[in-house]
């Protein structure tokens, strides 16, 4: 065991990397803004072109901030799930938690048409989306938890996650059949995933959700470490299984559900980041992992979003395409060295 102090340099380095990724993210976009102009705007002066000020303060900075929250929060939820399910392949997307959130969101975005026969647009607000998506992810988490207690097999759990994905897809296609073209389009755009286009109020709400999830995670650090030994050992160390499990599940649900409501179902970040982090911080100690995973998740999300911007072009790729390209190989790599299946 290294003392916590020995990680100081690593933490300093990734904090620096985060600043760099953040600047890179802010400096790229469809409108080209020279780097020195960008810096001077960030430092408080006004740029010569008025629209630059507006773009930086009202679009790019909130977007970068959202990327930090989304990447960090999803990665923490992945870490919690991997420890709770004792499963290296657990993550919000793979276990179907994001699907649950999607179903909640689809019901809000398209379901109202079904029920009321009018475009649901008037019924939508941010809070109802967040609540519906969180409830959806809780529901799936509870079912996965029940199944995980019965089936000890790692692969079975993943297949169950896939099935939830299929069930969601089926229900969504039923909803889509009956919903209006605009509603359907809004759902499709949402499902691509995006960290942009959030209003100031939405960013505030998202920050609150992520902070709450993080707070619960930090309070669970000692219990998470005990869970590394297995549930019987954790119990013999004085951990109340039911209570700790519930708190961890609530934290996961809030993080995965809340984030999915605002940013759409973002693939693989939650699964991949804890593993990438363990490659560099070679420890299982959650006191180190929780801050490290958050920082890594933020960095990766900022980079993915920067790539999705297609620098110097007016096109924006769906962020899910980028995160999948990064994350799916990580899953394959994990399965190939399955012999160890370490987490």
């Amino acid at each position, binding site marked *: 065991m290294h003392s916590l102090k020995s990680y100081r340099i690593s933490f300093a380095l990734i904090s620096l990397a985060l600043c760099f990724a953040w600047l890179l993210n802010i400096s790229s976009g469809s409108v080209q803004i020279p780097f020195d102009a960008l810096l001077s705007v960030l430092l408080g002066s006004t740029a010569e072109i008025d629209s630059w000020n507006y773009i930086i303060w009202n679009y790019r900075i909130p977007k970068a901030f959202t990327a930090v929250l989304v990447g960090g929060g999803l990665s923490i939820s992945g870490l919690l799930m991997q420890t709770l399910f004792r499963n290296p392949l657990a993550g919000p997307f793979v276990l179907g938690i994001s699907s649950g959130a999607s179903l909640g969101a689809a019901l809000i975005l398209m379901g109202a048409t079904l029920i009321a026969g009018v475009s649901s647009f008037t019924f939508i607000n941010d809070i109802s989306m967040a609540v519906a998506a969180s409830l959806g992810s809780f529901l799936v988490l509870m079912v996965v938890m029940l199944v995980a207690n019965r089936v000890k097999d790692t692969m079975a759990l993943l297949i169950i996650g896939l099935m939830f994905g299929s069930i969601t897809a089926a229900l969504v296609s039923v909803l889509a059949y009956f919903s209006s073209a605009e509603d359907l389009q809004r759902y499709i755009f949402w499902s691509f995933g995006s960290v942009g286009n959030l209003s100031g109020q939405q960013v505030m709400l998202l920050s609150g959700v992520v902070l709450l999830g993080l707070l619960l995670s930090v309070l669970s650090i*000692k219990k998470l470490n005990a869970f590394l030994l*297995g549930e019987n050992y954790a119990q013999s160390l004085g951990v109340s299984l039911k209570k700790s499990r519930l708190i961890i599940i609530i934290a996961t649900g809030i993080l995965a559900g809340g984030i999915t409501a605002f940013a759409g179902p973002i693939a693989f970040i939650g699964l991949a980041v804890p593993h990438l982090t363990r490659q560099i911080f070679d*420890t299982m100690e959650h006191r180190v992992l929780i801050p490290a995973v958050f920082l890594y998740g933020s960095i990766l999300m900022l980079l993915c979003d920067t790539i999705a911007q297609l620098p110097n072009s007016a096109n924006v790729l769906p962020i899910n395409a980028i995160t999948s390209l990064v994350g799916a190989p990580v899953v394959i790599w994990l399965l190939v060295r399955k012999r160890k299946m370490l987490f």
Partner: protein
Amino acid sequence: MSELKKHSITVKNLIVGYKNKTVADNINFAIEPGQLCGIVGVNGIGKSTLLRTLGKLQPKLSGEIAIEGKALELNSSFELAKILSFVLTEQPASKNLTVQELIALGRQPYTNWIGTLTKEDKQQVEESLSSFLLKDLRNNKCHELSDGQLQRVLIARAMAQDTPLILLDEPTTHLDLYHKVQILKLLQQLAHAKKKTILFTTHEIDLAIQLCDKILILDGRANPIGTPKELIEQNYFDQLFPSEMVQFDAKTGSFKVNK
């Protein structure tokens, strides 16, 4: 009360099992601090069920269990963590922990909300490392260890938990003779030097006879307990297995196959 205090663990008329199924009944014994006690019996007789019940990992069906004079069920799981520790047959969920990290987890009942190790905690971890000959392996990951080494780590973790009572479920399975003896001798040292009460289930009856202070034989009837010598003199080991297959030799304290 004083009579109860003298015994680390006292069990009266205990019945263990599951909701609809009694696994073992009529269990009575008392063990004093500083004693190493082996629990032997044929497969399926309820050794592990008894051990899990003693550790409150599963509820008893009826009877009394008292640890240091206090009924087991009156202890919260948090209090219990300072009274008894476990070595289970299951592997640790994450084998990516280092030896030292895993042993340090044994200090959880004593650490603060986030698990900071104090000077005393670190000292306990060091002592456990050296008692179980693990100093050179401290930074190794658990998946790099042999079965015998991993078993020593798990027992060292229980020692670091610093409880008067330690329960071990088949600590010597899958080990070769040398490592079986090594584990049992280390347990014997721990019991005698630190005045710990150690109970373990085992199939190594001949080793238990040589190393244990007491043996509890689960035979499904009287479930006798005594020193190995007493039990041999009363011919209890003869009845343990069907005699047409194996026979107990009282002179050597071991079983012989009938040819």
